[in-house]
């Protein structure tokens, strides 16, 4: 936990650098302020800001958002998420199946080749999931934020020779939009004058094996564990193990899926901030690695690299659980502008 994210300086940014603000990303599982934003509030008089927010708000050109999203899309397709290779090497040392070890080493060779040759690690470069946190003292000029994000996705997928994998109408037409847009964009409004963007390319092999269940409160921890086990067991080889298992608990029907997705989008190695849930993540990891699927479902001990839990308050009569599976081609990048 408390990982730091390098601040990426990009062309077109209008503000001069500040050594204190925005030097790090948000905490995992914590809340709704960007770290360091308190500095901003204490530094600037609130009355000045409320008097004419448009004049004093930090301005970012929409083109910078697009350029940033495009760069992230291109990079992650060929260069898997930070920490991934370490997790895979650790998996090699834990695996006892001979085939499993061969498979894991093949996945590592694939990742290296992808990086050196600039070839996507996996041909399924996915649907683009974008999580944006927008400070209340920053605004985007030139286009809506959503249009800027989608323009970036389109450009990134075109320039990066990535696969366009989105159909417009899901049922009746199913015609490829040939731009990989629209992206799935989630917004959060926070304090401060920064925009934080985390992007994932989510393949559908693992997405298709994900499940959601409305448990009752009586099901408790056991019920949650059994459901996670059921999902990982049923996924077998289809979800391209070794997996990252994102578990959302609580919230409502609509919210719990997004919790699970946020768990999947966490940086490698990051644990839940609450030690009780961090311990549960460890326990669940041990449990899911008894199902036997192993690397690529060819048998073995390493079915998952990590299990991650995200929770939210819920109704007195509810215990929603969502399990979002992620394949070993884990592609997430983030940046703070």
């Amino acid at each position, binding site marked *: 936990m408390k990982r730091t994210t390098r601040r990426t300086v990009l062309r077109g940014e209008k503000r001069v650098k500040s050594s204190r603000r925005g030097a790090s990303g948000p905490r995992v599982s914590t809340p709704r302020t960007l770290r360091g934003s308190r500095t901003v509030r204490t530094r600037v008089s609130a009355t000045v800001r409320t008097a004419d927010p448009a004049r004093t708000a930090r301005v970012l050109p929409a083109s910078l958002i697009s350029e940033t999203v495009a760069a992230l899309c291109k990079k992650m397709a060929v260069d898997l998420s930070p920490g991934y290779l370490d997790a895979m090497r650790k998996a090699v040392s834990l695996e006892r199946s001979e085939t499993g070890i061969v498979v894991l080493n093949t996945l590592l060779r694939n990742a290296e080749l992808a990086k050196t040759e600039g070839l996507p690690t996996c041909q399924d470069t996915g649907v683009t999931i974008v999580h944006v946190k927008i400070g209340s003292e920053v605004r985007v000029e030139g286009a809506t934020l959503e249009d800027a994000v989608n323009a970036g996705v389109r450009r990134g997928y075109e320039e990066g020779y990535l696969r*366009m994998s989105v159909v417009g109408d899901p049922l009746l037409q199913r015609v490829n939009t040939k731009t990989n847009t629209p992206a799935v964009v989630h917004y959060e409004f926070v304090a401060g004058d920064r925009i934080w963007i985390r992007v994932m390319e989510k393949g559908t092999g693992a997405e298709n094996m994900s499940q959601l269940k409305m448990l009752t409160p009586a099901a408790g921890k056991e019920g949650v564990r059994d459901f996670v086990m059921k999902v990982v067991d049923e996924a077998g080889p289809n979800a391209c193990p070794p997996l990252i298992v994102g578990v959302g608990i609580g919230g409502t029907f609509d919210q719990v899926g997004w919790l699970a997705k946020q768990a999947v989008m966490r940086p490698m190695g990051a644990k839940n901030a609450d030690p009780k849930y961090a311990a549960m993540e460890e326990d669940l990891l041990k449990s899911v690695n008894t199902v036997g699927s192993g690397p690529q479902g060819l048998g073995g001990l390493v079915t998952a690299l990590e299990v991650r839990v995200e929770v939210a308050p819920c109704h007195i009569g509810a215990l929603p659980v969502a399990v979002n599976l992620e394949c070993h081609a884990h592609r997430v990048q983030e940046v703070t502008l």
Partner: protein
Amino acid sequence: MTGPIAVRTPLDDAQLAGLKAGDLCEITGVLFTARDAAHKRFLDAIKKGEELPVNLTRQVLYYVGPTPARAGQVIGSAGPTTAVRMDSYLEPMLANTGLKATIGKGHRSRPALAAMKKYRAVYFAALGGTGALLSKHIRKAEVVAYEDLGTEAVRRLEVERFPVYCINDLAGNDHYRQEKAKWQTWRRPQPAESYGEGLD
């Protein structure tokens, strides 16, 4: 484990009968590609009694939608997609085209396995998420049908020592299920007490 088994396309009966679930194979020859959208068109053609745009007699179908090739590349990244999505098309494909093998990743459904048994076909898995490595075994790629489908168009690939595992052989073995059973130390709860939801 012995070395990989060399497989050449088109597949003859001797080759098919010699394959065992769990064999690591290297395919040299031709693979045709198709995934969801192309299969839908294949099936529409079959239903109308029309000829398919490709002759699949004794051939191998590879479930893949590659990334676009850059200048100088034969093909982009080209790993397998989940095979089970093509299962509802498999029986008519086997019955009407003379197809003898498919390559994908993940389990086949029970009806698909039954169809493979009936029409004496095998199923191979390539390693999912190794599209960069697999592309290096593809020597030539050309679109031969349904070009408008983009990545989902039907391609003819010439491959050399393309690595796959035999998952389902003619004897009805299932390599995934057999290996999983060997490594599994968890027992799935019985349906009556399952998952604690208390509603079913």
